[in-house]
């Protein structure tokens, strides 16, 4: 009952927010609105980024309906497409900072875009709250004072999966990963970590198809030929669908243990449909199984407003706004140096529970869910999913110090 009530209230709040936005900035009597620049690949990576933006708007409207931030100021996001290339993104970031006069910038999806914007932010001494790019480099070797990342990095998600494989007996592993930084570094992390979870594990085959162009038949054939006991998969999106279909037909996954990155996220799970393999251990977001009234209320409000189920992007967008609102309230200033200092070990209460921005590597402790894939009514779902708190999977502190000493 509680959640239904909240759902309605959230809906009304959303409406009120829109109405306030329509009447312009003058409506915010308590002071000028706080504007945050959000640049992302809304066009190229629409499957993730549109639900992400939807949830951000939902969260901002809810916050504004209940009094805003920093003692009654409205929270506004200026959304911009980053063009999906570093060159375009840096120009857009410049536009947001100089022409839109945003307090700071957030967002980006692709790792190369995130890194370029991060370095730009460092050069201009402005806060960059990286939400989605997964590259370890962003908080490690190329980390800088002004860049903070929320989502669990490639290393953290790989480590969650490896931990889930602890106690298994499969020794002969094959790796298949898209041939770009995310795939390469997931594979490298896996090679490093698997031995600690399964002593004596070895990598006997590796396949790195070009992103978006997997030749599924040839790749599956090459993997099967190596006769591995288990497979570590990093493919996602269209590559994953093609790989799974080919593998199902050729029996690649039969009697083989599979660890798979991101496969449980609705963005990538929905297209698999009735081809979703049984019993893969994956990271993902089982939105229909997450406990807690706050999360249920979020799901209801999201469905009511957008007539769609939330995606992983939606969750991330909502949590982003929760953390940023908390940051603004705590810092009570738009000075970027003050904001950066306030972010250090900032602890926020969010949809996924506590999220702390660890100071040493400027990485958020937001986690993700680890579970097994299965099917229900011809749709892929996760079962036995548990939330893996990012705080337990971060880089060891001495590694961070070594990587960030520059």
């Amino acid at each position, binding site marked *: 009952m509680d959640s239904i009530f909240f759902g309605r209230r959230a809906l009304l709040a959303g409406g009120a927010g829109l109405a306030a936005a329509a009447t312009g900035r003058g409506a915010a009597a308590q002071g000028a609105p706080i504007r945050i620049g959000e640049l992302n690949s*809304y*066009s*190229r990576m*629409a*499957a993730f980024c*549109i639900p992400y933006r939807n949830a951000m708007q939902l969260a901002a409207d809810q916050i504004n309906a209940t009094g805003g931030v920093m003692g009654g100021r409205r929270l506004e996001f200026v959304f*911009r*497409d980053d*063009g999906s*290339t*570093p*060159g*375009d993104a*840096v*120009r*857009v970031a*410049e*536009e947001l900072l*100089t*022409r839109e006069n945003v307090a700071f910038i957030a967002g980006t999806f692709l*790792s*190369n875009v995130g*890194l*370029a914007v991060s*370095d*730009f932010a460092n*050069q201009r001494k402005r806060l960059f709250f990286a939400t989605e790019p997964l*590259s370890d480099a962003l908080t490690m070797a*190329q980390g800088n004072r002004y860049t903070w990342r929320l989502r669990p990095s490639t290393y953290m998600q790989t480590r969650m999966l490896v931990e889930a494989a602890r106690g298994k007996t499969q020794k002969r592993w094959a790796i298949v990963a898209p*041939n*770009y930084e995310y795939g390469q570094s997931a594979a490298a992390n896996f090679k490093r970590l698997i031995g600690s979870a399964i002593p004596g594990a070895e990598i006997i085959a590796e*396949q*790195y*198809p*070009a992103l*978006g*162009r997997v*030749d*599924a*038949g*040839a*790749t599956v*054939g*090459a993997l*099967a*030929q190596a006769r591995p006991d288990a497979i570590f998969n990093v493919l996602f*999106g*269209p590559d994953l*669908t*093609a790989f799974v*279909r*080919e593998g199902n*037909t*050729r*029996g690649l996954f039969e009697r083989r243990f599979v660890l798979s990155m991101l496969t449980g996220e609705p963005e990538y799970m*929905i*297209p*698999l*449909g009735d*081809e979703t393999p049984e019993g893969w251990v994956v990271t993902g977001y089982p939105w229909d199984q997450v406990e807690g009234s706050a999360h249920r209320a979020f799901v209801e409000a999201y469905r009511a407003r957008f007539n769609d189920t939330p995606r992983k992007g939606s969750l991330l967008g909502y949590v982003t706004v929760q953390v940023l609102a908390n940051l603004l309230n705590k810092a009570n200033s738009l000075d970027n140096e003050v904001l950066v200092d306030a972010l250090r070990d900032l602890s926020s209460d969010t949809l996924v529970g506590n999220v702390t921005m660890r100071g040493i590597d400027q990485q958020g402790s937001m986690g993700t869910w680890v579970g097994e894939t299965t099917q229900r009514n011809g749709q892929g779902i996760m079962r036995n999913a548990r939330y893996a708190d990012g705080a337990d999977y971060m880089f060891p502190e001495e590694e961070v110090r070594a990587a960030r000493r520059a």
Partner: protein
Amino acid sequence: MSVEFSFLLVQALSGLASASSLFIIASGLTLVFGVTRIVNFAHGSFYMLGAYMAVTIVPWLLQIERSPTLFFAGVLISAAVVGVLGVAMEILLLRRIYKVPELFQLLATFGVVLMVQDAVLHIWGPLDIAGPRAPGLRHGVMILDQRFPAYELFLIAAGPVVLGLLWLLMHKTRFGILLRAATRDREMVGALGVNQALLFTGTLFLGAFLAGLGGALQIPRVSASAQMDLAIITEAFVVTVIGGMGSIGGAFLAALLIGQLQAFGVLIFPKITLVLVFLLMALVLVVKPWGLLGRPEAAPPSAMPEGIASPGRFCVFEKLLVALALLVAAMLPLFGDAYAVKVATEVLIFGLAAFSLNFLVGNGGIVSFGHAAYFGLGAYASGLLVTKLGMPMEPALIVAPLASGFFAALFGFFIVRLQGIYLAMLTLAFAQIAYAVCFQWVEVTGGDNGIVGVWPAPWAASRIVYHYLVLVVAVLGIIALRHVIYAPFGASLRAARDSAARAEAIGIDVRAHRWLGFTIAGAAAGLAGGLYAFSKGSIDPTLLGIPLSVDFLAMILLGGMQSVVGPVLGAAAFHSIKDVFMPLTDHWRFLLGASIIALVLIFPRGLGGAYASLRARFTGGAP
């Protein structure tokens, strides 16, 4: 023998299945090129539309009955719908631009690509859509001790069947005979009274149908996604070029080669599948300049040269205009805001890059599809020197054009031996190879993440000072290139472009001139790339990518490639359009595509050309 025979056999079959799919798509591309001479970028869009149509139509039909007949009926209907879309494109767009230079047609089809991408996102939503499996062909078939998908056995048969049907069409029907005739000599077919409009419409239908069929046949294997168009189009181009443009048999042979290369390539080099096909294309073109089964392009270039005819001098009014533009660029920091200065800096950099490309295309007749490679290599040279060796900005900027010039000379040695579309595709192949090296050589180049921290020297760190630095360097670069265009060397290049045979006859070493021209243009692009790297603070492989090469082409075409300073104007126009639309909407690609098409239709000779005819009207001279 460590690898067993059954595995090799199944791997070869996988390669054949890919080859069949690739051939069906490429056959349409090669047909359309053969008859209309249009390099149809939108062919990949038709492939994508075929897949989207099929994932919409086929499940609907299968609800009636899960039968193979209805599945394949759905596939054919989807292909036919795409064929009709091809007809629409021919009637609404291509028919209006057959008379304009070939590159403009390419640009217009690229506009279609951008529009279709956003339209697909709008209609079908951003999630990938997986189609149904083919009823009756879901299972795997045991071949020796390996399981192989039945549907792929069907695909292996489909390629040769399409080849056979096309052969019958080409040899046994009047339409096919006309198609072959038009491929050999388009003018003659027209002169003999054949209704060309109908012939071209029919060709576009057939081409789009084949692309749609290729896409629709893929739905049991891959999900329909908004990225599949660009993934397939480069590969389809590679197949048609290796086979010889216009040759269907050649496309079949090339598809077989590429299919096997990929199937076995992943076993030996699992990381370089990205570049394997381009290495093969470069190799084939160096050995066989017209592809495996292509014929030398017999027809000389059209009577009216596409490019700079005779560079005129500025009149007083034009000198004033140029002075005014320079003044605005110089005074901008006084009245424009910080962002306007930033955009102006980028326009100047792109202006230099576009000018250097038109030095090749407009003045030399050397069409490059890979000019971004030299831009990117310049950026990498500067960026690596600054970040890895700690070199200051100033010498790093000097090295940028030298490094790019070196690679332009290296690649150009092979490139300038070819002609026309083959030359353009070889520039693309070398650009992709350079891209792959930057992408793959993670230890040195940082891979696709690139390298950050490429910032200017402290004295040039502010936006305004860097703007002036770029202004001075870019303008000097443009003046130098312009001087070369007016010099005897530039005139020799134009002579070689208009008639290589006559140029040879009067003692011009055509190949040496073109080689040197290519090197100069590459060096100038590298200078622009170096400036760009310092303005962004980072380098990454997108700076060498096909999209940026296409942007450069769009700039010179919008500006007008028969005009000397037009490309700078084009760079400003293109960059401004993009900058205006990007903040407005998620569908900025749609608007960018629509603007490109509108500009091609309204100013078929570019902005520079429009100005020239305006000037001719006022001065009364011939255009």
